[in-house]
C-alpha cells in the first residue's frame, strides 16, 4: 500500500528545494515528499555552545582526576600536584558553563531537587557537584599543604567519579531522539572516554615537569589513537544516519578534530619525549582536537535533528522491514 517514497535532496537550510518554487508547489511537496514540507519531525537541541565546551571540560576534569591519583600513587608528586589544580580548574569551570546555559544561577539548584536514574542529566548533575567539591577540596588542601589524609580521600573520591564525568555526557546526548546521537549510543561513550583520556594526557604534558610527564604523553597518544579508532568504527556502523559526521559544518569539525589529534599525537610520539617545544605543541594540538570533537558531535546531532530524513528513513525502513505497531 505504501506509495513511492521520493525524497528530495536536502538544501542546507533544512528545506527541500522546490517547496518555495512552482515546481515544488505545495501539492507536489505534499504528494511526492514523504515529509511535512521538509520540516523537522523532532526539535533540535536548544543548548547553547557552552554545552559542547562543557563536554570537553567535564571529560578533561574526570580523566585528569584518574591520572593525577595514579601519578600520586606512582610517586610523581609534582605532576600529581599540578594535575590536581588542572582538575579543580576544569571542574569549577564546568558548573559555570551549565549555569550560563540555564541563564540564572538559582536554576542550577533545581537540578538537585530530585535524583532520577532515568535522567542522565540528573545523575550527571549529582556526579558533577560531588566531583567538583572533592576536587576543589583536594586542590585547596594541596595548596595549603594540610591534612594529607583528607586530601587523599578527596582525590580518591574524585578519581572514582572521574570515569562517570568522562562518559555520562555521551550517555546524556545518546538518550535523546536525535538520530545521529541515539543511533550512536554504543559508540559515543567510548569516543568521549578516549577523548577525555587524550585531553587529560595533553594537560599532563602541558603542565607536567618533563621528567614526570611520560605517562601523560603516552595517555595523550593512546587516547588520540583510541578516539580515531572509535570514530572510524562509529561511522562504518551508523550508515546514512552517520552522514552528518562527514557532511556539512559538523563534518568539517570532525575532520578538523581528527587532523589536529593525529598531528598532535604524531608530534608527541616522535619528538615529545625530548623536545619541550614539540611536547607543548603536540599536547596543545591534541587538546584542541578533542575540543573540536565535542563541537563536531554536537553539531552533527543538531543537523540530524533538523533534517526529517534522518528521523523518518530509518524508522520507515524498520517499520517496512520488521513491521510496526505504531500504525494499525
Amino acid at each position, binding site marked *: *500500500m*505504501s*506509495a*513511492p517514497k521520493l525524497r528530495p535532496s536536502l538544501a542546507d537550510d533544512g528545506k527541500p528545494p522546490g517547496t*518555495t518554487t512552482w515546481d515544488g508547489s*505545495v*501539492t507536489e*511537496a*505534499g*504528494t511526492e515528499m514523504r*515529509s*511535512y514540507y521538509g*520540516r*523537522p*519531525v*523532532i*526539535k533540535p*537541541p536548544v543548548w547553547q555552545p557552552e554545552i559542547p565546551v562543557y563536554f570537553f571540560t567535564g571529560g578533561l576534569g574526570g*580523566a585528569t582526576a*584518574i*591520572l593525577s591519583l595514579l601519578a600520586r600513587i*606512582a610517586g610523581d608528586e609534582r605532576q600529581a600536584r599540578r594535575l590536581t589544580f588542572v582538575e579543580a580548574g576544569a571542574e569549577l569551570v564546568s558548573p559555570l558553563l551549565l549555569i550560563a546555559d*540555564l*541563564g*540564572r544561577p538559582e*536554576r542550577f539548584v*533545581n537540578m538537585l*531537587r530530585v535524583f*532520577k*536514574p*532515568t535522567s542522565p*542529566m540528573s545523575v550527571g548533575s549529582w556526579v558533577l557537584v560531588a566531583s567538583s567539591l572533592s576536587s576543589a577540596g583536594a586542590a585547596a588542601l594541596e595548596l595549603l599543604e594540610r591534612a594529607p589524609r583528607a586530601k587523599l580521600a578527596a582525590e580518591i573520591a574524585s578519581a572514582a567519579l572521574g*570515569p562517570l564525568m568522562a*562518559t555520562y555526557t*555521551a*550517555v546524556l546526548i*545518546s*538518550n*535523546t*531522539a*536525535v538520530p545521529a546521537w541515539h543511533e550512536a*549510543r*554504543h559508540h559515543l*561513550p567510548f569516543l568521549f*572516554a578516549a577523548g577525555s*583520556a587524550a585531553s587529560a*594526557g595533553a594537560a599532563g604534558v602541558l603542565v607536567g615537569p*618533563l621528567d614526570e610527564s*611520560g*605517562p601523560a604523553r603516552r595517555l595523550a597518544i*593512546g587516547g588520540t589513537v583510541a578516539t580515531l579508532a572509535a570514530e572510524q568504527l562509529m561511522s562504518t556502523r551508523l550508515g546514512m544516519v552517520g552522514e552528518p559526521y562527514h557532511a556539512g559544518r559538523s563534518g568539517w569539525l570532525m575532520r578538523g578534530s581528527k587532523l589536529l589529534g593525529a598531528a598532535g599525537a604524531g608530534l608527541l610520539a616522535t619528538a615529545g*619525549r625530548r623536545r619541550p617545544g614539540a611536547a607543548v605543541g603536540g599536547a596543545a594540538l591534541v587538546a584542541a582536537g578533542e575540543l573540536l570533537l565535542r563541537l563536531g558531535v554536537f553539531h552533527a*546531532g543538531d543537523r540530524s535533528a533538523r533534517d526529517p530524513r534522518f528521523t*523518518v528513513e530509518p*524508522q520507515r525502513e524498520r517499520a517496512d522491514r520488521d513491521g*510496526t*505497531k*505504531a*500504525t*494499525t
Partner: protein
Amino acid sequence: MSDGEVLGLSITHVTGEPDGHPGGYGDEAMPRMGFFTDTSICIGCKACEVACKEWNQVPDDGQVFSGESYDNTSHLGASTWRHVAFVEQRRPLTVDGGGSLAQVAARNQLAEAGEVPIGESADGMRWLMASDVCKHCTHAACLDVCPTGALFRTEFGTVVVQEDVCNGCGYCVPACPFGVLDEREEPNPDFDAPDGRVWKCTLCYDRLKGGHEPACSKACPTDSIQFGELGALRERAERRVEKLRRDGWTGAQLYLATPDDGIGGAGAFFLLLDDPEVYGLPPDPVVTTRDLPGTWRSAAFAMGALVAGTAAAFLGGRR
C-alpha cells in the same frame, strides 16, 4: 531491537500502563484520559488552536506566512499546543494513494462510474487536515529525562510541565520523539531575560480537575477531536477505522492506538488517512529511555577502558 532487555538498572517499559499511574495515586487516581483525533472529519477550521491559546493564555506564535497551504503555525511548539496540518495531494481521497499516474487515472475513471464510494474529487486531488497535539505517551521520554521533576504524570495519566519547577535545561526538547516540547524565547515577565522554560499541552489539567473537557475538543465543531477515557476511545477508534476501510478509505490507519508500540501507546492518538510522516509524524517512534540501560552498559565498558588505559600509560618510564 530494544537494549532494555539487557539489564542495567531496570527502567525497561513492559506494561501498557504509564509509570506512576494509576499506582502512584492510590485513591486519588482517575481513569486515564486522552484524545482521539479523527482526521477524516477534520475541516481545518483551527478552532482548536485558538481555543487552546485562549484558555491556556498561550502567547501568539508570531505572524509568519509559510506558503505551505493554509498552515501558518507550521509545527507544535512552546506557544502552539494544537497544530492543524494541511496536506494537499494529487490523489483521490478514498483510494489508496501513490502508485503510477496511470493507476491514479484508472481510479478516477472508476470514480466516474461511481464505483469508488466517496471522497473522489474530479480533480483527483485531496486535502488532508489533521490537528496534532502532545501525545501524552504511556512511556514519556520527556518525563523520564527531566532532571528536575518539573514534568510529572497526573492522576489522569497525562504528562504536564510544572512551570514553577522547570529550569529550562532543555533536555526534554530533543528527547521527545515527536518534537512537541520547546523552549519559549519570549522574555519572562519575572526577570529581564528570555523565559527559556519549556511549555506544552497540559491536556487542560485545570479543566480536567474542574470536571470539564479540554478547550480544543470542546471547540471542535465536527467532533474530530474526541476527549474521554482512553479505553473507550480506543474501542471507538477501532470501529471507526473499520467502517472507513469498508467505505473504501484504504489509507485509513490508527496511529499510536495500541500499548505495543515504541512508546507504549499514546494518551492522544490519531486516525490518519496517509502514512504518519506525511503529517510530519514519525512512522515508528521509540521512547529513547528504552535504550538507556544498554547505553549505560556500553558506558561502563568505556569507563573500564578509560581506567585501564590510564593505568597502562604508567607502564614504561617516567620520562
